């Protein structure tokens, strides 16, 4: 592994984040924001593999998040299987669902694929709500409280969860970095940029997309299990719900879809901004977080269509424009 700038910056960021519980995230409220932000970093990185790098825009990643959360939780509650194994089962279930959905629908063009994925998560949500004998239905599932039981993926304080999700996020980052310069990653990017040209050059588009989709689904499901164990409670809306799907996609898009750093920046920026707004106006106005969140969405869509990662470039271009305005007109030669 070559020690390039991405790796060095990544390592520095991980070290800073790892130190946060010692000095910044000292209240349980702040800790909660930290864990949620890192969760969305991991989810956005997983989404980015197929939707950003592969260009197959999914608006239904809540489906895989929920399948991960529910598979491991049901295995734990019904059969007493530790979530460490349950999360692998969840990843397999998610991959199978992704393959079954992707195989027929990858033939569809852009917008249709987006809508099929969106609808697939809604279907799972409805099934999960109405099949209450098995899934617990609308009231949700509570995971039995064991307090400190590392073997059962349960800890008495939130700090271990923080480090677990930090490790997961870092691994996903490394995976993305590897993928961006691997043969598989180049195939996916080629399919995104020009599918016909890629196919003519011999890329098997269906298999590449399916592999990317299954991988993305599995990584999302693993985070689903993590989140279930962290909250010790899941319900259909907070896992399969359309907000979950949309938030996963938006974290990556706002940061910069298809890039290595975009999902990291998007997750680390969007979640805390929204939460801080809430803390500022606590008690007077509810929903300030949502408004701040939407303002960020609208502003990035208008000014930084390629995401926050393109901010330095945006500033450079603006500065050059300013200089050109100030500089005296060049005499024509």
């Amino acid at each position: 592994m070559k020690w390039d700038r991405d790796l060095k910056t990544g390592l520095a960021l991980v070290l800073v984040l790892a130190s946060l519980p010692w000095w910044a995230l000292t209240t349980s409220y702040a800790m909660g924001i930290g864990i949620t932000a890192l969760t969305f970093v991991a989810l956005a990185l997983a989404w980015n593999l197929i939707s950003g790098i592969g260009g197959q825009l999914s608006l239904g990643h809540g489906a895989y998040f929920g399948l991960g959360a529910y598979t491991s939780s049901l295995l734990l509650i019904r059969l007493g299987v530790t979530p460490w194994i349950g999360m692998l089962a969840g990843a397999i279930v998610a991959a199978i669902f992704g393959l079954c959905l992707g195989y027929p629908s990858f033939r569809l063009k852009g917008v249709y694929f987006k809508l099929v994925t969106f609808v697939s998560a809604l279907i799972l949500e409805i099934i999960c709500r109405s099949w209450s004998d098995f899934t617990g239905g609308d009231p949700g599932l509570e995971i039995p409280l064991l307090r400190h039981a590392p073997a059962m993926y349960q800890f008495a304080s939130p700090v271990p969860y923080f480090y677990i999700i930090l490790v997961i996020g870092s691994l996903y980052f490394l995976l993305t970095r590897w993928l961006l310069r691997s043969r598989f990653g180049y195939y996916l990017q080629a399919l995104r940029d020009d599918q016909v040209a890629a196919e003519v050059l011999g890329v098997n588009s269906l298999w590449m997309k399916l592999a990317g989709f299954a991988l993305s689904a599995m990584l999302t499901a693993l985070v689903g299990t993590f989140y279930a164990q962290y909250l010790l409670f899941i319900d259909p809306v907070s896992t399969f719900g359309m907000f979950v799907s949309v938030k996963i996609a938006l974290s990556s898009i706002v940061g910069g879809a298809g890039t290595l750093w975009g999902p990291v920046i998007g997750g680390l920026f969007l979640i805390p901004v929204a939460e801080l707004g809430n803390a500022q106006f606590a008690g007077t106005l509810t929903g300030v977080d949502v408004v701040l969140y939407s303002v960020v969405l609208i502003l990035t869509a208008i000014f930084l269509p390629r995401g926050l990662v393109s901010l330095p470039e945006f500033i450079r271009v603006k500065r050059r424009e300013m200089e050109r305005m100030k500089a005296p007109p060049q005499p024509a030669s």
Partner: protein
Amino acid sequence: MTQFLQAIVSGILVGGVLGLVSMGLSLVFGVVRIVNFAHGELVMLAMYGTYLLYTAVRIPPPFSILIVAPLLFAFGVLLYRVLFEPVVLGSTELLPQLSLTVGISFALQTIAQWVFSPTQRSIQMSWTTTYYDVGEVFINQAQVIAFLVSLVVSLLLWLFLARTDLGRAMRAIVDDREVAQMMGINSRRIYAIAVGTSAALAAVGGNILMTYYPTFPHVGLQFLPLAFVAVVMGGMGNVLGAFLGGIIVGIVQQVTGVYVAFQLQNAGLLLVFIAVLLLRPSGLFGKEGSL
């Protein structure tokens, strides 16, 4: 049999209003190439507007359409000029328009929550609870009126698209925007009018829905997925197809609700949706390769 007829009739009646809302979504997609995730919130705004007009100045729906629809038309034009245009003219990419319209949707919901509180609001008209009894099939009077209004407005829209220069220009842009622009069609103006018209359609839908459905800040989310399904079934960008799509959605929903399980009515619908897409990727009434 009566049960089946009942399901079909209610499906058509409810589906007509949904069809109207879906036509607006389809129009914006066809003309401006935006999948507007904030379309449900336009319906929500119209429902609150109707509610206020009725409770404050006693103007009942459907007559308040004459106030609500122009207001939403203006709102739509403003929405286009201020927010959509910088994103649409910059690029044809899907990603920025997704964050844009989702952002608008979230913001409108929260603002509605601040202004109107999360409480459900409804208005009681004399016909909300009146039923016609046609050979053992019960037909709600409010739903009949709503359906008739939807039908009339859809016909007006069809006339507008088929017979006026503006409507023809819109269809030209849907078919081939580059050629349309070369023929001298001012697309910026057309886009603004299309978004305005779409918002006005949502306004009519919201107005008549208010006679039998309560409003709350997140009410738009109830209609958005259904409208997507209707639009796709009709063939994206096929505006009249979206109306028929809405009616199909209504029927499938009601039939699943009666014969399978009430909670599963949307699951049945969404499965039909995926099946339709896989068998006919350009929708039931879409032209092959229209996209």
